[in-house]
């Protein structure tokens, strides 16, 4: 029953920003054996105290249905929206990428950063920190290219996502 093709889904969850809500969501994933590829959370409506959690997960169609149903029944969850299912959407991630090196490698990293539209946000004689936003794929491609050029540290936010067009989720 749980067989079938495994697919990556980006799910947006609108929740009441109350203590323990993140633990509840994360606990649901670990307790029921679901995957979390990335997770981001921040308050998006300070008057109503609503937070938006974006989870990227993988599973068969039936498991994804279960994940959504299980999330929906958490009491502080207002809305669950499967952006992958619901039509075109944008996904962005931010990364800070530290590259240390000298000479040719240093120049090369800067050149590639330019092509990828990564910004230099810190620089010393022997290092750069690049800031980059984009799709997960783009970030990963850039990070891979930095590896031979002296990649020393990466910090990533995980994906946030929003549907295209005029409507809210």
């Amino acid at each position, binding site marked *: *029953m749980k067989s079938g093709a495994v697919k990556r889904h980006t799910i947006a969850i609108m929740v009441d920003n109350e203590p*323990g809500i993140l633990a509840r969501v994360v606990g649901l994933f670990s307790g029921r054996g679901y995957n979390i590829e990335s997770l981001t959370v921040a308050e998006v409506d300070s008057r109503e105290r609503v937070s938006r959690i974006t989870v990227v997960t993988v599973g068969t169609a039936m498991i994804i249905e279960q994940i959504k*149903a299980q999330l929906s029944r958490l009491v502080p969850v207002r809305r669950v929206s499967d952006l992958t299912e619901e039509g075109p959407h944008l996904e962005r991630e931010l990364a800070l990428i530290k590259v240390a090196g000298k000479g040719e490698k240093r120049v090369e990293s800067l050149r590639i950063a330019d092509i990828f539209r990564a910004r230099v946000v810190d620089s010393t004689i022997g290092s750069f920190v690049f800031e980059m936003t984009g799709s997960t794929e783009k970030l990963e491609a850039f990070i891979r290219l930095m590896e031979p050029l002296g990649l020393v540290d990466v910090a990533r936010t995980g994906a946030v996502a929003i549907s295209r067009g005029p409507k809210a989720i």
Partner: protein
Amino acid sequence: MRMTGAEMVIRALLDQGVDTVFGYPGGAVLPIYDALFKQNALRHVLVRQEGGAVHAAEGYARASGKVGTVLVTSGPGATNAVTGLTDALMDSIPIVCLTGQVPTHLIGNDAFQEADTTGITRPCTKHNYLVKDVNDLARVMHEAFYVARSGRPGPVVVDLPKDIQFQEGEYVGPEHVLHKTYRPQTQPDKALVAKAVELMAGAKRPLFYVGGGVINAGPKAVAQLTKLVRMTGFPCTQTLMGLGAFPASDPLSLGMLGMHGMYEANLAMNQCDVMIAIGSRFDDRVTGRLDAFAPNSKKIHIDIDPSSLNKNVAVDLGIIGDAGLAVEEMSRQWRAGKIAPNARALKAWWSQIATWRARQCLRYRQSDTVIKPQFALERLQAAIKGRDDVYITTEVGQHQMWAAQFLKFERPNRWMTSGGLGTMGYGLPAAIGVQMAFPDALVIDVAGEASILMNIQEMSTAAQYRLPVKVFIMNNQWMGMVRQWQELLHGGRYAESYTAALPDFVALAEAFGWKGMRLEAPGDVDRVIAEMIDHKGPVMVDVAVDPKENCFPMIPSGAAHCDMLLGPEDKAEVVSEDGMVLV
């Protein structure tokens, strides 16, 4: 209105219609106990261990249809409650459990009797709260009751730091509290119901498969379901949790299905072409091997919890909503459409079912020297037959399954058993809870000698409140259910399933101020049962039953419905390696 946090707790309970609280005091709840002391409207039942309090509240809730209420202290009080909370979550029982907590400024300091109660109970409650501001307290209390009883019912914990209990704040009544967002869907989609009715109208081998959700939906839903089933003339099987959701004596009832269910119910499930599941959750005890579960059927599933749909079994038509409202709409459409089921096909279906019934799957070999557990329960059934004021609780094991098979429930809320978690030790405290709700009723805990020892201390509670509960121990000296699995699946290597040094239950009963009786001869069964029922106070009957008896019918783990073992002559060769790893 201004009052202290502790006073608010009492006031909120009363405003929520609570009349009984099951609890146990301790440092972190003393202000609440003090407030309790100063009033008379709310009864407190002092249990002997907090686990007992939650099971008692579960019994009270299941029997009365109200929310069960528990009050325990911080730390060990709260952790002792965890098994009961998990039990209530699995069986969809509405509970509000108030736990004391160390004062807010000490939270996180490993203070005396501190436990991270909201952390520990997050996965075993429907929801929980930590109250950090006295002005939130009244709202949280009312929300807790609302959440516990709405949608799919479940346990809610409210963690109450001691300083909050002392502080003064503003009380608000329930009429001023509306949960911000939680609104479970209860009205079914009529168009989906229409599709269901269409499927049912065309069915040749239909089957209703009804569960605990119908009982959660209330007696009116049960009455409506009974009407619908009779209107259609379809057979109806019940889960362990659904016993009483349809009258057992009705010829349309096939009895319980599943691992230890009726042969006819399981075969009907295997062969049906349209399944109408209502408030049942396709538990593995019911489905057996999933790829062989009702393989040629269209499945309709009505459930209030969207996560129950398509969880274990993919269904063709999922309908979210309250069982009562959905059944009502279904009946309305069935009548309005003047639907006549396919009479010829239905007749053939019923004659097929009759051949399965003719196997008499509950038959057992009677003995005149030793009491067969089935016989004892058959006689118990004969003694309580026709009475409407009988409530049965059970412990967990073979005796539980035999009780489910041999006791007949005509009405809902008369049967309390731990189904989902299978908690040994549930039955006695649950019986206490039922008896608190119905002081004049006959409440019987059908027990095993191993299970009863898990919450034996609650005998003292029954004695204190003069609760005339009866404990009917099917004493086979073994953890029978474990022994049975070891016999069938582990080559008869009986590791640790025999309880040596059992107590003298008659002497034990007397020590607690109960009446104790020992029953050993088949010829004495009726007399002792009558004596037990007639005695005005609590009674413990130690019934010496055949230690080697196994519970049949049985679908071994991982097997299909059509691979049922009907008796000791059937061998469990069908158990696959995949089946062995299953619980």
